[in-house]
């Protein structure tokens, strides 16, 4: 198979459950893991005589998403009915937005995998076609004695985000979903917990000979519920289409399913069996006018875009790529880092190192070992439970930079700070860690050490021009001071005495 002579063209339709307290057309709350049919009311069940009322929060979350991806927010949006009979669909029509969606256009910046973990990959803009609001449906399960339906999920607000066919590989599709999830979660628009089905994806895939300008016939694979599923499915489907074409067959426009267990796709229905959804404007919900004041208010809630933040860290703060990619992945972590930098702006790289390495490592160890904190363990690394405050880490970096404590001592102070939440100064005093910067006392120790015949050889080598030989003298001095001596001062005084 000559994959390199083929170009893969991918468009995604991503369904995201919006973070709202209640459902999109009813005032009943929704959540995950409740007993079946607990989160229903007459509207959700489509009882005769009930009418939908649009949830303002769902519309505002959708607008906020649009602002995050720099989409156009039209002045009006409207609802349509998508008619199809299925027992998980309480009204046997789904309320959705076909002709007047809540956002138009927009773009998502993605980063492709770099040549190594420490090197930034290529960046690319993926255009969005639009995003529209709709209601989720219930869940049907079949048992030996019959079929059961749970309407808890019915009416959960869904935002369907539709891309242009701008993605060119399974890796790009995965990178797009990662970037989209970061934007959605950082703006608080959605939690995107894929294990709870909060993000599902349909992948439209076609292939064409490199250089062709016409798009090939596409297939749509429905209901992919993990990023790895999307990646595997696209790889499978593109390879299948290339094989079909190379063997002289044609691609049928069809709707497909994906079996994640055996990593194979299968035909759900072909074009002949395509549903006629008989879309028409919903007569129950009036067209919604989106006031410019609402858009302006929501604009203020748009957080800094992750890659913008990364570029700022690299260009303005001089951080290395590796640290920035750790920080920007989590808005709370990046905000925490910035609070520490605000308290001590002299050494952002030093602070970034502590945050990206020590703090994350200890937080992750603490959350997996419940005893480390008195609170019960939480499922995810949580900065909210962290006892170190940003200003305290800033203080630790500051006294280390000033030579009050050594880098080695700083590790010890950090561990104590992580455990107790005390300030660095308090810990240093309590443990007697303050570096010895008393020149008189240090000079006495140095004189004793260089008088020791055991180091005579090193002294001779240093005097003969071997710069590195001086280090052999620092160990014994540090030992005599129980590690409290200021290394810079040792170096300075040693050179004075040997010079």
């Amino acid at each position, binding site marked *: 198979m000559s994959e390199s002579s083929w170009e893969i063209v991918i468009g995604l339709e991503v369904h995201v459950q919006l973070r709202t307290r209640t459902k999109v057309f009813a005032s009943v709350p929704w959540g995950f893991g409740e007993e079946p049919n607990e989160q229903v009311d007459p509207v959700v069940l489509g009882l005769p005589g009930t009418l939908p009322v649009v949830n303002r929060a769902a519309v505002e979350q959708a607008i906020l998403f649009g602002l995050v991806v720099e989409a156009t927010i039209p002045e009006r949006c409207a609802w349509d009915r998508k008619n199809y009979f299925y027992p998980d669909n309480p009204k046997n029509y789904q309320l959705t937005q076909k002709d007047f969606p809540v956002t138009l256009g927009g773009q998502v910046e993605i980063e492709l995998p770099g040549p190594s973990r420490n090197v930034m990959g290529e960046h690319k803009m993926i255009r969005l076609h639009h995003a529209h609001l709709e209601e989720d449906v219930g869940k049907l399960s079949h048992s030996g004695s019959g079929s059961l339906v749970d309407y808890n999920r019915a009416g959960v607000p869904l935002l369907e985000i539709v891309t242009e066919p701008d993605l060119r590989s399974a890796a790009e599709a995965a990178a797009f979903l990662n970037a989209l999830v970061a934007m959605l979660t950082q703006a608080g628009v959605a939690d995107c917990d894929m294990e709870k089905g909060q993000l599902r994806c349909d992948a439209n895939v076609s292939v064409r000979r490199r250089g062709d300008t016409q798009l090939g016939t596409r297939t749509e694979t429905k209901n992919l519920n993990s990023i790895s599923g999307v990646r595997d499915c696209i790889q499978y489907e593109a390879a299948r289409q290339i094989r079909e074409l190379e063997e002289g067959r044609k691609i049928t426009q069809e709707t497909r399913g994906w079996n994640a267990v055996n990593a194979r796709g299968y035909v759900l229905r072909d074009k002949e069996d395509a549903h006629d959804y008989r879309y*028409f404007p919903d007569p129950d919900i009036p067209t919604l006018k989106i006031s410019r004041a609402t858009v302006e208010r929501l604009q203020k809630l748009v957080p800094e875009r992750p890659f913008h933040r990364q570029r700022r860290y690299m260009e303005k703060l001089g951080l290395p790529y590796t640290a920035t990619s750790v920080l920007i992945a989590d808005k709370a972590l990046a905000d925490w880092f910035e609070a520490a930098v605000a308290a001590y702006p002299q050494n952002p790289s030093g602070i970034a190192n502590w945050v990206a390495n020590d703090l994350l490592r200890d937080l992750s160890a603490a959350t997996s070992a419940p005893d480390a904190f008195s609170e019960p363990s939480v499922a995810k690394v949580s900065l909210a439970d962290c006892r170190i405050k940003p200003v305290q880490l800033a203080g630790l970096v500051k006294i280390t930079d000033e030579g009050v404590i050594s880098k080695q001592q700083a590790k010890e102070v950090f561990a104590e700070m992580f455990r107790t939440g005390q300030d660095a100064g308090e810990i240093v005093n309590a443990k007697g860690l303050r570096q010895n910067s008393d020149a008189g006392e240090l000079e006495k120790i140095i004189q004793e050490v260089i008088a020791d015949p055991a180091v005579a050889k090193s002294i001779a080598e240093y005097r003969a021009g071997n710069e590195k030989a001086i280090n052999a003298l620092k160990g014994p001095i540090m030992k005599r001071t129980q590690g409290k001596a200021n290394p810079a001062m040792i170096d300075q005084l040693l050179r004075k005495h040997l010079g």
Partner: protein
Amino acid sequence: MDLPSSDLAVPTYYVVATAEASSNLARYDGVRYGHRSTQATTPVEMMTLSRSEGFGPEVKRRILLGTFVLSAGYADAYYVRALRARSKILSEHLAALEKVDMILTPTVPTPAFKAGEKISDPLQLYLEDIFTIPANLAGLPALSVPCGKSQHLPVGFHLVGAPLSEKKLLAASRVFEAAHPYRHQQAPL
């Protein structure tokens, strides 16, 4: 006063109303409430049979008509055109109501006919609504007032007003009823 699109009202109404009915009545599938067929072996068959058994002929006629006018390939010719006619009817009424306070017509074109007399002629039956339908399509307030007898049978007149003119319509009918208390007269049964 000129309402040139009045003759479009009944056909427009029966496209829009049946389209909406076909979708509104979709929820009567036997899954959550109402009649459920006992003959089915699968969920989809249960829905199909429950609907076939539960609905009467006029309801089925409207569902079929509504489903047809919304179908791919036909929606533009029927449903979309009907929506255009509906906007035209509304704008003509609004223009007319700029010049007059209210529009007065008979409520129905003929006195009451015998029960079941026209059941086999749905088109004739639908035309009985010719005076009341425009207000419904246009979303305008309207009311019917008993105003005397024709061929010994009670008849009424129909008043249509501008949007939010309910108060004016009620005041006008109150004045008429005070002068002509027909509502107290019973028709011989």
